[in-house]
């Protein structure tokens, strides 16, 4: 049932990232906003024959102001929890009209994006449903800045343990208000929807890798999902010039794992690949955590706990950093 997709070749190096801009001036994102870069890279990779739908969040409110839209591709707002439904509806509308001869047939990229609030929290069921419809070509991109950043930095299901937010402020009695560990979203979606042909994590610090992931997702056919980690100067409390570096540190400390699952095959990318092969050592989590004001209240004991959790995920998990359970060992 899957209709044709566009031909979007893989790039080798930054110089092959298209000059084309679909996300231009006119937005009002913060200085150092990594999510804005994610939007820019996303549409560079996808090209002009695309429809982008954005759910409520920073990348709606800060990006898209009446009379000053940065989008040169068709763009539409959707509700906070609706990225999955928006992608499904857009793709279904196009598919139906083209099949019935009511619209000129051509492959049009359908991309719906959501933040971590819209994707990991509220929109999860709609994303799950969208991933079950293998007859529609669509990409859902979750840009994860690890809080409800647009509404004043409130903790989400994707916020890291211990992070200071306006809903999880450290206090005199309770130092750690966010006691939830970050949701393991991509493996959950990959394992839960085995027919989905492409699921990946990404990070805007790695431009060519990011471009190629968007392109694989858009060309492989069927519904796909990409989850990117987006450093946020406002929510993470650091100097805006370090966004790029913090993205890399998230990966190099092993807190964020870069990988893609293509037709059921797990491929680790960049530093994560090197870490998993033992070619490269993970940097201590403190190198990442202590660069951010949101973790300033963490004590030595807290940092140790954080490090141990990350160590466990690499040393005890069945698939290091990705799949947290393992088969029962019947040998002992």
């Amino acid at each position, binding site marked *: 049932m899957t209709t044709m997709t566009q031909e979007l070749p893989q790039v080798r190096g930054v110089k092959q990232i298209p000059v084309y801009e679909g996300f231009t001036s006119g937005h009002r994102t913060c200085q150092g906003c990594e999510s804005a870069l994610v939007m820019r890279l996303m549409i560079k990779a996808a090209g002009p024959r695309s429809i982008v739908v954005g759910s409520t969040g920073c990348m709606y409110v800060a990006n898209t102001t*009446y009379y000053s839209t940065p989008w040169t591709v068709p763009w539409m707002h959707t509700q906070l929890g609706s990225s999955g439904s928006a992608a499904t509806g857009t793709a279904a509308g196009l598919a139906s009209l083209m099949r019935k001869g009511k619209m000129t047939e051509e492959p049009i990229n359908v991309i719906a994006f959501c933040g971590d609030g819209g994707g990991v929290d509220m929109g999860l069921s709609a994303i799950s449903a969208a991933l079950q419809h293998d007859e529609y070509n669509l990409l859902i991109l979750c840009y994860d800045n690890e809080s409800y950043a647009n509404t004043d930095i409130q903790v989400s299901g994707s916020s890291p343990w211990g992070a200071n937010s306006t809903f999880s402020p450290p206090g005199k009695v309770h130092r750690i208000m966010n006691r939830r560990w970050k949701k393991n979203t991509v493996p959950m979606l990959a394992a839960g929807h085995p027919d989905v042909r492409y699921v990946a994590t990404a990070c805007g610090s790695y431009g060519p890798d990011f471009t190629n992931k968007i392109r694989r997702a858009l060309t492989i056919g069927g519904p796909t999902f990409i989850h990117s980690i987006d450093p946020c100067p406002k929510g993470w409390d650091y100097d805006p010039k370090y966004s790029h570096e913090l993205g890399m540190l998230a990966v190099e400390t092993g807190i964020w794992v870069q990988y893609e699952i293509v037709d059921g095959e797990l491929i680790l990318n960049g530093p994560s690949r090197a870490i998993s092969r033992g070619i490269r050592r993970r940097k201590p989590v403190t190198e990442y955590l202590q660069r951010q004001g949101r973790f300033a209240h963490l004590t030595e004991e807290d940092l140790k706990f954080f490090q141990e959790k990350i160590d466990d995920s690499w040393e005890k998990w069945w698939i290091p950093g990705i799949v947290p359970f393992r088969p029962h060992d019947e040998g002992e």
Partner: protein
Amino acid sequence: MATQTLYQTEREELISGSEAIAIACAMADVDVITAYPIRPYDTVMQYVSKLKADGAFDCDFIVAESEHSQFEIVKHASAVGARTFCGSSGVGWFYAFEAITVTAGLRLPVVAMVGNRALDDPGAFGVEHNDAMAVRDLGWMLYWVGTAQEAFDTAILAWRVAEDPRVFLPAAISCDGSFLTHSQAIVNVPTQEQVDRFLPRYDRGRLLLHPDNPITVAPQVNEDWLMEIRRQTDDAMRRTSDVIKEAYDEFKQVFGRGDPSPFIEEYMTEDADIVLVGMGTLAMPVRVAVRRMREQGKKVGFLRVKFFRPFATDEIREALGHCKAVGVIDRDYSYGSPSYGGVLFNEIRSALYNLDQRPLVQSFIAGLGGREVLVRDVEEMTNMVQNSIDSGQVTQENTWIGVRE
């Protein structure tokens, strides 16, 4: 084009209101339909899915994972130019509320069926009108259907009006749970040729979301522009009256049936001292009661409100202005409202207020949760209205009918 072979000749079928609307979907060649189960509306989706399975028409039929997604999916399909249909009942309609409100805000001509049902809690399958009514301020056209035939006709009319570029507003067709969704009646199904003549293709025009037309839809506007945009939606709703009239006149020409007015149905109101007002299938027992009371020499009539939005203020004033008293029978409640009256009651009373000579208006709440409204209930209400006329004032503004104390 399988539909054309199925519907080459006009014919009569014994079907429910739900099945009538499902056939309308096929004949309107709807492109995207979304379903989610909840009684009693979901019968329409059972018929739709069977029609698709049997090749009666081609659509993308998507079973969503919630009503919210159900309404979001058709909203976005509509934005890229697809003709759409969905629906719900009771709390399911409320689960979709966010999507419902933005659909009107985005001016997308989604057509939905509401199988009216009591809201939880406690659970009840039967009809109440509070579900669909909850969106009365948001820019949806709201219609209450009286028969299965009218369900079919209204669906065809709904796409025509909603998709008119002068309107571009969504429309909900309310069908009383059980009484319409599950009860069969003879329906005249027209030919495909007639439907095609009446219903042009949906053309989103310069608002189409497509790479050839790279617009940005629904950016953040804040206080700078929101009021102007609200006013545009208000203007669109004001235009619906003329568009409905125009479409309804053509409907009568093409299909050879219809009432004098698309907005209201008047029954023996001309010389009536008392006019009862209600919506939906309530019309059936009320008409019987009116006939019976007329035989006894009482000057009673009935006015059925078909379009609740747009509310036909002028026609309703015209129809009710001359009588002595009006009794509004609401199949809904509005806790804490003016006079503790029903929703329709307060709308009617408000419409009549600025008349120089206005009738007394009295509120009745009846038939909640699908409880049957009997002929003797209608007679009781009429007697109470007569008492108000006799005493020159409405002493009890609101009465719940047939409630065990």
